């Protein structure tokens, strides 16, 4: 996949629009999932996806292939989402409910279908988590998403957000503390 991406970047740099289209089509859903988790809002996440690929388009010539394309893209997406939050646009509009039956688009899909009750419960829990995440500061939120959902180490988080490793650790720590305050009354009820 990486070799294919590198070849596509080379072609796109040479003006091949189809190669650029393949890059966008191949990575959009992952970028959206990351952006949604950081912004907590579909509309804002879409905006971040657009900003990310606009930046990629502008900077494509500077991609030197020293890291993987997906890592480079991830870094740009994190920066766009983090900057978006810091510009304070997350309160711009009402929050949108995910449609019934919404499932993680980048998660593992199992053949077992949840019951209606399980579905309702998971949506309710998801909403509580989303509210709790919305109370975090941009740095805490971005650091937590990178740690918890993206599985990045403290060093990688520090690198993505352009901060020190100890600052990254503390941001995750503060985020978890706040989430605990907010979610622990409900956490016991989960099975």
């Amino acid at each position, binding site marked *: 996949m990486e070799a294919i991406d590198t070849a596509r970047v080379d072609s796109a740099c040479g003006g091949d629009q189809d190669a650029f289209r393949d890059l*966008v*089509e191949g990575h959009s859903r992952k970028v959206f999932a990351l952006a*949604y988790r950081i912004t907590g809002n579909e509309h804002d996440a879409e905006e971040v996806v*657009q900003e990310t690929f606009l930046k990629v388009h502008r900077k494509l010539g500077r991609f030197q292939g020293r890291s993987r394309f997906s890592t480079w893209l991830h870094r740009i997406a994190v920066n766009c989402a983090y900057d978006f939050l810091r510009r304070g646009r997350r309160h711009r509009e009402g929050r949108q409910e995910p449609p019934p039956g919404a499932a*993680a688009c980048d998660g593992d899909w199992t053949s077992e279908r949840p019951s209606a009750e399980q579905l309702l419960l998971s949506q309710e829990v*998801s909403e509580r988590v989303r509210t709790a995440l919305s109370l975090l500061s941009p740095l805490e939120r971005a650091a937590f998403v990178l740690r*918890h959902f993206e599985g990045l180490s403290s060093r990688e988080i520090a690198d993505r957000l352009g901060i020190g490793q100890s600052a990254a650790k503390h941001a995750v*720590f503060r985020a978890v503390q706040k989430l605990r305050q907010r979610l622990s009354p409900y956490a016991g009820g989960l099975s």
Partner: protein
Amino acid sequence: MNHLSQERLIEHHYGEDQDSEASRQHLSQCGRCSQRYAELRAVLEMADAFQVPPRGQEYGTQVYERLQVRLQESRKSSEELRPVSLEPGASGIWQRLVQWRPPRLLWVPALALLLVAAFLTGRYWEAQRGLDAQQVAEARRGVLLLEVGRHLQQAGYLLAEVGNVPPRDGTQMDFERRKASEMAADGWIFGRAAQETGDPALVETLEQLQRFLLDIANGPTTWTAQEIEALQTRLEEAGLPMRIRVLEDRVRRQQIEAARSRARRSL
């Protein structure tokens, strides 16, 4: 037995514990820590339920098509770049009214008015209820400690945020400015109220914090790397985050003491 700190439990959960084996052993022997760890894991597992709205197979194509429109627009606008002029009639009275924002200084008399009203209402209420002066003083102190504790906690988070902003040119500080502005409005009232407590450390720290909050709130929307570094250096030199942390602990202890004292009196 040294219990595992919250930081250590979090690191252990995410596989970044420096001495994972020792933690595992401790968790198997210590009921208190294993319970705290179980609670932490329950919360983090709950976070896993955060769902991302699904996007279909055609999503990538839609993103690309929208992107094409944006790319064409940006090409066009760079070609047609020219000075923007105001449309005739754009300075109508309604437009000016809609765009009017109250000057920041108007908040100060408004808050002062609120404070005086609260004071007079309190006096009236006390006289009506015939409450014991000491009870009233204790209740006031309790409320003040609670609110100051919250204020300090929020300030600690904000300063940590500002202290960790990567120093880059063109950094947007909207979030920090908005937060600092909200907190500065509260801080002014707490500063006045803290003077009544006769606690010089609290008064001094709140004053110092207030200056930082106003600097951030009145600062530019976009900061340069140099401005960020200057603020971070000032914060570090003033030792404000540490002072706030110490004070926050003290206020929390005082809150507990005040609550105990009230409970004793009610027995």
